[in-house]
């Protein structure tokens, strides 16, 4: 039983990390494309941008719903505490989702597309902003009492470091959105997104460098963790590898490659995610509550592994199948009938 109460929360930590990573990667380019649509020069382009997402946005977003449901079931305490603490960022994200989801249907049916174009772009931006602040606030630390219940105030999530994280996350989404568009489009649109990708790569890099340098300086808890043996070597390698990946990304953009930029960006996301996971583990509310303290009853964790675990490969398979069905470049701006 003792080993189970260590092992099961760890399994769920990894499963939830996988769901979250898939979400951040997939809805990341999804939201990035949405944010980029705000800068599109004309309606035809916006149409193509939305077409490139029409059949996948919903499945991409579902990974978040899945992560939320998993967190609720596996770490109920963390679910309640984190969401209560992040009331405003979460609601911001939720409203963003509402705007962009309905924009897909309404834009197609509407004769005056301006409003729904804006709803799509602004909704994507709001969702990314909410997520960025949520991430920033979780990394900064949530005020809880010794039982893990939130004792902070409404605006705790808002700070200079969390703003920096939010801006960087938005840049990262724009980057992966741009490289996705480079892959899925042709002609002038592709040329434009080579440029936005390059710009976003630089702004993301700057943000990441700032965060990497300031985090150990500002937070005592992060400092002690980062310079712990033997983790310090891993944490030393990650930024170096990150810079190398960005360099590869910029090179492939310069060579006008079509798929490689997207792949390099995904690898960057993987690396960042691994880094974050290592900083956070074994905490679920960083530096306050560990996964062991917040975990549901072991019997719940087991039943969830039985009921959800076998579906993970199946879900991955049919999501992949969907991408295969709709492979190839996006043509035309019609995405519905």
């Amino acid at each position, binding site marked *: 039983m003792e080993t189970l109460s260590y092992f099961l929360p760890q399994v769920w930590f990894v499963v939830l990390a996988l769901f979250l990573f898939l979400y951040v990667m997939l809805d990341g380019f999804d939201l990035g494309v949405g944010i980029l649509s705000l800068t599109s020069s004309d309606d035809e382009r916006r149409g193509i941008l939305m077409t490139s997402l029409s059949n996948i946005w919903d499945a991409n977003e579902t990974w*978040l719903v899945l992560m939320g449901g998993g*967190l609720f*079931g596996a770490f109920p305490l963390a679910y309640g505490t984190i969401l209560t603490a992040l009331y405003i960022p979460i609601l911001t994200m939720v409203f963003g989702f509402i705007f962009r989801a309905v924009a*897909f249907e309404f834009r197609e049916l509407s004769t005056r597309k301006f409003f729904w174009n804006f709803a799509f772009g602004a909704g994507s931006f709001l969702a990314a902003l909410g997520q960025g602040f949520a991430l920033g606030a979780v990394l900064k630390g949530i005020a809880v009492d010794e039982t893990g*219940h939130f004792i902070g105030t409404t605006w705790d999530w808002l700070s200079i470091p969390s703003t920096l994280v939010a801006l960087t996350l938005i840049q990262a989404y724009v980057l992966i959105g741009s490289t996705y568009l480079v892959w899925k489009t042709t002609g002038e649109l592709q040329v434009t997104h080579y440029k936005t990708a390059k710009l976003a790569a630089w702004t993301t890099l700057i943000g990441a460098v700032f965060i990497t340098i300031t985090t150990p300086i500002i937070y005592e808890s992060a400092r002690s963790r980062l310079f712990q043996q033997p983790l310090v070597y891993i944490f030393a390698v990650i930024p170096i590898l990150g810079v190398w990946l960005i360099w590869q990304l910029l090179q492939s953009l310069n060579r006008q490659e079509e798929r490689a930029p997207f792949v390099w960006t995904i690898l960057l996301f993987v690396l960042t995610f691994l880094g974050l996971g290592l900083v956070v583990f074994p905490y679920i509310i960083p530096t306050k509550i560990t996964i062991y303290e917040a975990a549901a009853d072991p019997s719940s964790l087991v039943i969830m592994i039985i009921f959800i675990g076998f579906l993970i490969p199946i879900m991955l398979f049919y999501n992949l199948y969907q991408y295969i069905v709709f492979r190839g470049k996006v043509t035309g701006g019609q995405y519905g009938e």
Partner: protein
Amino acid sequence: MEFLSDSVVLSRMQFALTAIFHMLWPVLTTGMGIYLVIVEGVWLKTRNPDYYLHARFWSKFYVLNFGIGVATGIPMEFQFGTNWAPFSEAAGNFFGSVIGFEASWAFMLEAAFLGIMLFGWERVNPAIHYLATILVAVGANLSTLWILTANSWMQTPAGGEMVNGKFIVHDYFQAILNPFMVNSVLHMFFATLETSLFVIGGISAWYVLKDRHQAFFAKSLKIALAAAIAVAPLQIYIGHLSGEQVFHYQPTKLAAMEAQWESSPAGKPADWSLLAIPNEKAQKNDWEITVPNALGYILEFKKNLSEPLRGLKEWQPEDRPHMVGLIYYAFRTMIAIGFFFAGLMLLSTLQWLRGKLSAENIAQQKWLMRGWILAAPLGYIAVESGWIVRCVGRQPWTLYGQIRTVDAASHIPASNVLVSLTGFATVYSILFVAVLYFGSRIIRRGPNLNLPIPGMEVDKPAVETTPGEFVPDERPVEAQE
């Protein structure tokens, strides 16, 4: 305006608002999914292009509803954490897992195959497409299964016990198969199907009355009617079983549903109040019409009650539901609509058997068609009423008999909830108007009967995706067939 500074009341209002609004969309996508499986199946079997065009036309409503269903479902999930954190923590062991099951079993399946169902006509072969349509319908209905499982468990928490303020599950299958579960799932399954069938029938009837594509829509109306023949009576039966269960497991809710203030002992008949004005302050009904001795027949099909029916007065005011009038009338509204549906189905079936619903005759059935148009929105009202009875009637408990609603709410400043509640109210109102507007536009445009049929020679431009304004179909009736 005291409630404006009470975060519990505001959180309840927000949950009620978002739930009532959210429910409108999955009702149609869940039931219509099955309808689409039927028409696509008939198309594949008969290769009659009409059924293909039906599938394409009705899926426009599907997609219009789907996006909003997704967008408004996400706030529901997150609210458990933001506004009901103590409940999430206390009940997470079971309730949270079930929410996770819904996401993995249901949402992902529906979301991943929806793209293929809507946009994949030209990209995958018909068998795969049909599989996608089936999986979308299965996904939507699995969602009903898990959500109703979770909600039933909130009504009749089984399979474990509260230990130090947390629900510990001893037997998962007992918790999943809690006393309310099977009937609740079936009741909701039939509710989504029935609502969708009468929406489809109602829109079809509108076209018939407007003299547009009569043959085409006589067909969809008859498909809906054929399904309703089975569904409408079954729904009444399942509803009755659900009522019986409330009698046994949630006496406070039953007393509120029937506005019974005084108790009736076992072995005696009891009067049933048909209509009343319940007065919570005076703990009696100010006015009522009662049917003598009817309650025993309603609950148990016999005159004398076999167990006592406890009136509301048996509980302290803080232990019984408030808003008795709302529960009482919501319950009656739901039942009236259920019987109206059954009656309309019977009448229409009769006319069908007399050959009055054929393409040539159907337009003469003016009153019947008006009845169907009237029925189109009623399913929604019945579903919402049912949920009001179910969840307002469960009060003051969030987890019946275990966790009180006041203890289930997050400790957050009321101002936060007020802002988000206002935001939801505003945005949802705009969306509601927009859906009515765009939905009516889809109806006004009508079906695009010139779509190329997959697997058939085409003499038209390959993809005509934006049908223009309505052009009357001037081909002879035979050609339209």
